[in-house]
């Protein structure tokens, strides 16, 4: 999956290297290159720099008429106050817990389903798979209200999942994209390997755990990253099902604090935003090959 993004185009693109080597073109190329470099820094990196550095300023410096791009002196107070007084620590841990549990449940449920669909091929398996894929076409927005009512009073069981992690975890497990990608990957694992495991006396579950999963590391990595990122970024659904302020995710809590009547100092608020952004940026820098590679693979296969 990562093969595409790392490879510089072996074939030529719109403008050939020979053309670029001509004197006029060369000057134009370096002008465009520097302009793009600066523009990208201004448009995409500067806002993040502004966010991280503004939270280092004193509230007075932040509110000053002439803004300072580099803080005159570095103060960690805003970060500290955000972490303790605004209780960002609590919401941060909430979100970590929701993301970790959601990841585990999503992966276990979807791997098992995809394995059965790909390798055990039960009757009506195709129909079940089609029903799952159909949910990809359902806009999440259209299901919001009935899904909320369902979570507040589960059919048959009459359990109320509101304000519990299950309200995020169980609907998250119904992830057709995961099942689709996993199934396609499992389909490529030769049946002979599984037969060999069966001859050695492995049960279906053991085959899954000892043969299929170790072979599936690359696809599991991509799915895990997208699962964690998706849960960290989610807003509307947690906003509805976790209305108890103590249970909220970081995103929802930031929204609530920004609209609450007690005024939070802007530097503290911005510190909160930075803290919410850091795990995603770190994750991106570590796994950019997986993330960008997953994207381009998706694009090529439509």
């Amino acid at each position: 999956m990562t093969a595409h993004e790392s490879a510089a185009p072996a074939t030529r693109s719109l403008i050939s290297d020979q053309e670029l080597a001509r004197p006029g073109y060369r000057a134009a190329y370096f002008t465009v290159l520097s302009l793009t470099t600066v523009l990208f820094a201004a448009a995409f990196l500067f806002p993040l720099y502004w966010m991280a550095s503004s939270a280092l300023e004193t509230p007075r410096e932040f509110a000053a008429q002439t803004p300072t791009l580099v803080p005159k002196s570095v103060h960690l107070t805003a970060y500290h106050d955000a972490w303790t007084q605004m209780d960002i620590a609590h919401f941060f841990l909430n979100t970590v817990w929701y993301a970790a549990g959601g990841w585990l449940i999503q992966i276990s449920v979807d791997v098992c389903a995809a394995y059965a669909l790909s390798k055990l091929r039960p009757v009506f398996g195709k129909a079940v798979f089609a029903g799952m894929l159909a949910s990809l076409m359902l806009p999440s927005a259209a299901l919001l209200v009935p899904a909320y009512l369902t979570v507040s009073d589960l059919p048959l069981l009459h359990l109320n999942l509101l304000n519990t992690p299950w309200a995020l975890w169980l609907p998250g497990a119904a992830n057709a994209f995961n099942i689709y990608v996993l199934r396609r990957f499992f389909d490529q694992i030769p049946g002979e390997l599984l037969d060999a495991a069966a001859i050695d006396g492995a049960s279906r579950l053991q085959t899954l755990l000892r043969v299929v999963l170790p072979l599936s590391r690359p696809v599991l990595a991509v799915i895990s990253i997208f699962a964690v990122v998706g849960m960290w970024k989610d807003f509307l659904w947690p906003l509805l099902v976790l209305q108890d302020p103590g249970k909220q995710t970081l995103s929802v809590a930031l929204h609530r604090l920004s609209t609450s009547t007690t005024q939070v100092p802007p530097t503290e608020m911005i510190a909160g935003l930075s803290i919410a952004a850091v795990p995603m940026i770190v994750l991106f820098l570590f796994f950019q090959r997986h993330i960008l590679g997953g994207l381009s693979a998706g694009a090529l296969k439509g």
Partner: protein
Amino acid sequence: MATSLAPRRPGPPAAPARGRSGERSARHARLRRRVADNALAYAFMAAGIVCFAVFSWYPLFRGIVLSFQQDNLITDPQWVGLDNYRHLFDDPLFWTAWKNTAEFTGLALLLGYAVPFAIAVLLNELRHFRGYFRIAVYLPVMLPPIVSVMLWQFFYDPGDGLFNTALRGAHLPTSQWIQSPHTAMISLVLVSTWANMGGATLMYLAALQSIPGELFEAAELDGAGVWARLRYVTLPQMRFIMLVLLLLQVISTMQVFIEPFQLTGFTDPSTITVMTLIYRYAFAVNNDFGLAASMSVLLFAVLGVFAALYLRLTREAD
């Protein structure tokens, strides 16, 4: 690769010469085996099927039923026929929300559709800093949406927000941004485009790199300049992915929620959208879940058209 001769399901080979009862018991055993295999498969799928059934299939059905009911979560739901839909059509906010959503989608297409394509074409020609460009354009996509939106909320501050400070510094007229009904919508589109364009840009980039180089080579030999090559080679080669992303973008921008919700709230008629109105009906003002469900059904129907087009398009490609 060597093909294995191992049987699919290891077991004692059936003895060839057996009586009638033996044949029947062999068939029996095979049947039992198949039932057991299927039971095992369904055991593996059970959790998944339950999750889909409860949180995806059932809500779809329940949403449609709910749109014909009055339900405030306190008293028992009552059957009201088409009342909810009548209510919707009488509510001026309903029409405003659709108009605003169409406007948001239109503006988001003008900006968010053309810009990533142009950037991808440009980046594909740049021979330096490739990694930097990709990472930079995709960074905003990684941010939690509430972070992007709240960050821009600071930038949009009409007093000493970043944008007006910069405009003042350049002696240009400042703007009220989200505070004025004239510029509020475009301000929402700007932050949304900034936050989301990385994905489309990188998908275009991947598609551009899969165009065979010989096509450009041949065009150049025929005397085609850079523009002609862009027009007659790049564009036709990109038609499919451009159509796919167009449909996907329409589907996602019509569900816009967080930008208006955080920046302008769900009361401002100049920016209320379909999703914020659904939220308002169910959770914020009316506590009327039936009304919200009927609005959802209409949104579903509209998006369904685009989803069907998308399906047809990708099916044909397969």
